[in-house]
């Protein structure tokens, strides 16, 4: 059985490793500027599919499928990003007789409509962020809806995504202008004017639940991940369990995630995102991600499971195995090491990696594509490596282990966010794990730090 990995960087390496352990043949694809990257030589065979840049290679459905055809691959693992949540691609794989390792294209397509998604989830009894139940056509309707929801509200474009098309309206007097602006910008960006309102939960933490569902409909929700450390809506660090989810609340949260997954008709591995309020027991469904995520190793290390192998097995119609959510007092943390200069407003960098040494010892894992003398450009995302630590002795031990591991991680030749993580581990509020902070914490925290 041969599987093509339609991605690059660390997730391609991750998927190829899983395939090797499962005794399956791996096929890598690469753009010309990636030709000396590790995923190319790690796979059993590799095909160059286009010139530099994602558009002509990893994002090009026709070229990826041609590589599957000439290599004889029977399945494609899309990784994350690129074509991973592209329903057209999932359908094209179907038509080509190739198994897409992810949910069905038709299901993904239906879920692109956020109202549809929220309706299905709400009907299943999962709490959803208070907001419009259908597009808000006029500013008068927006006003009455906003009054019912309660200011501050968010005005959102139905077809926006990735953090775009969102406008904060703190009070009534600003609604009319925001409405006109949002409508015009939405029309300009995607040719549609559909807007809707949502309550602005500015005191919330971001908590997500990994779920798995097989083709027979059996579903399992894993222990949650807390991803509140974000900069400009990009996660920088994730941990599991969340310090703010008690063992009383956890069953409700996990059950909600399982029900949301089932209600949406999703299979394979998905992640259900929630916002958690300061009372530490009220949570609202935010959205559902239909791909494997960057931070999946946090869950793997907490529970001792292989999510990529599970994802591949489910795609091959294997039934969901029995999985335990027991973690005793284990704790797991992942630091994303990006090619960015924390001292220069996290400006992305590039260059030749001249030194690369990984930490070791118990409970330390590094997922990366890095190797000495690999060239980092700016064509792709800036993720260099993921440093994941886990400890059986609780969160503080996990933080100590992360500090220790960061000290042993050496990457030279390019800027990295290692200094950022070192500072964060020493932050009393983060390390304390008791004081509430939100996804905007770094906004005020970062300017106070001196990164060298």
């Amino acid at each position: 059985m041969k599987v093509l990995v339609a991605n690059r960087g660390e997730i391609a390496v991750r998927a190829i490793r899983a395939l090797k352990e499962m005794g399956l043949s791996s096929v890598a694809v690469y753009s010309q500027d990636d030709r000396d990257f590790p995923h190319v030589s790690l796979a059993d065979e590799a095909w160059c599919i286009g010139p530099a840049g994602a558009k002509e290679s990893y994002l090009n459905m026709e070229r990826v499928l041609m590589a599957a055809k000439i290599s004889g691959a029977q399945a494609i693992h899309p990784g994350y990003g690129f074509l991973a949540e592209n329903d057209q691609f999932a359908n094209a794989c179907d038509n080509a007789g190739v198994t897409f390792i992810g949910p069905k294209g038709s299901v993904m397509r239906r879920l692109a409509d956020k109202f549809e998604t929220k309706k299905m989830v709400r009907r299943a009894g999962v709490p959803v962020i208070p907001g419009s139940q259908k597009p808000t056509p006029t500013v008068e309707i927006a006003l009455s809806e906003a009054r019912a929801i309660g200011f501050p509200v968010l005005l959102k474009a139905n077809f926006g995504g990735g953090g775009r098309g969102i406008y904060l309206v703190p009070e009534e007097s600003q609604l009319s202008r925001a409405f006109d602006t949002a409508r015009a910008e939405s029309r300009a960006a995607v040719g549609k004017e559909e807007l809707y309102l949502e309550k602005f939960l500015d005191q919330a933490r971001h908590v997500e639940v990994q779920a798995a569902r097989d083709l027979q409909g059996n579903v399992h929700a894993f222990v949650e991940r807390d991803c509140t450390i974000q900069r400009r809506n990009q996660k920088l660090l994730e941990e599991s369990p969340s310090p703010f989810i008690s063992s009383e609340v956890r069953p409700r949260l996990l059950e909600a995630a399982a029900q949301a997954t089932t209600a949406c008709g999703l299979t394979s591995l998905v992640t259900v995102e929630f916002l958690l309020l300061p009372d530490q027991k009220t949570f609202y469904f935010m959205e559902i991600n239909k791909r494997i995520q960057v931070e999946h190793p946090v869950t793997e290390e907490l529970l001792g499971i292989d999510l990529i192998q599970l994802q591949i097995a489910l795609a091959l119609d294997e039934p969901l195995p029995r999985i335990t959510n027991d973690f005793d007092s284990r704790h797991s943390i992942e630091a994303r090491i990006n090619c960015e200069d924390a001292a220069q407003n996290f400006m992305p960098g590039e260059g030749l990696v001249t030194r690369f040494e990984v930490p070791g010892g118990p409970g330390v894992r590094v997922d990366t594509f890095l190797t000495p003398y690999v060239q980092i450009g700016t064509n792709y995302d800036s993720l260099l490596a993921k440093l994941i630590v886990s400890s059986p002795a609780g969160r503080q031990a996990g933080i100590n282990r992360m500090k220790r591991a960061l000290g042993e991680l050496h990457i030279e030749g390019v800027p990295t966010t290692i200094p950022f993580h070192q500072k964060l581990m020493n932050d009393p509020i983060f390390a304390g794990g008791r004081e509430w902070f939100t996804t905007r914490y770094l906004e005020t925290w970062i300017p106070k730090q001196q990164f060298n």
Partner: protein
Amino acid sequence: MTLALDILEWAKDKPDLAEIHYENKANGAPIEITIKFDSSKPNVSINENRLAYIEAPAIGRLALDIAKTQPGQRLNAGELIGHIEGAAAPSRITSPLSGKVLRAVAAHGAPIGYGDPIILLEIKN
């Protein structure tokens, strides 16, 4: 200049050749030429770069015009010498420059990746 090309001409029907080294230190005008051959991936370097590859414009299966790509055949810049089967545009394989075919390094009907070398071409002025 013509000496290097004469050497290549001489070498082209000797596929097992790994390296040619020519030296002539006579007449106060020493000449030294080294030519290395690699059967899997020709990597030729001479002191004047008169060689170029025609490369695959897309991934797919190679469909070569056999007659046009025999060693010794002359090609014009832009001339069509084959296409990549099944690929969306660009799928046409054209010679980037005018020149003479030295050898084919990929087989008609074989799978080929983007940018893979197909024909080794000797470029004329």
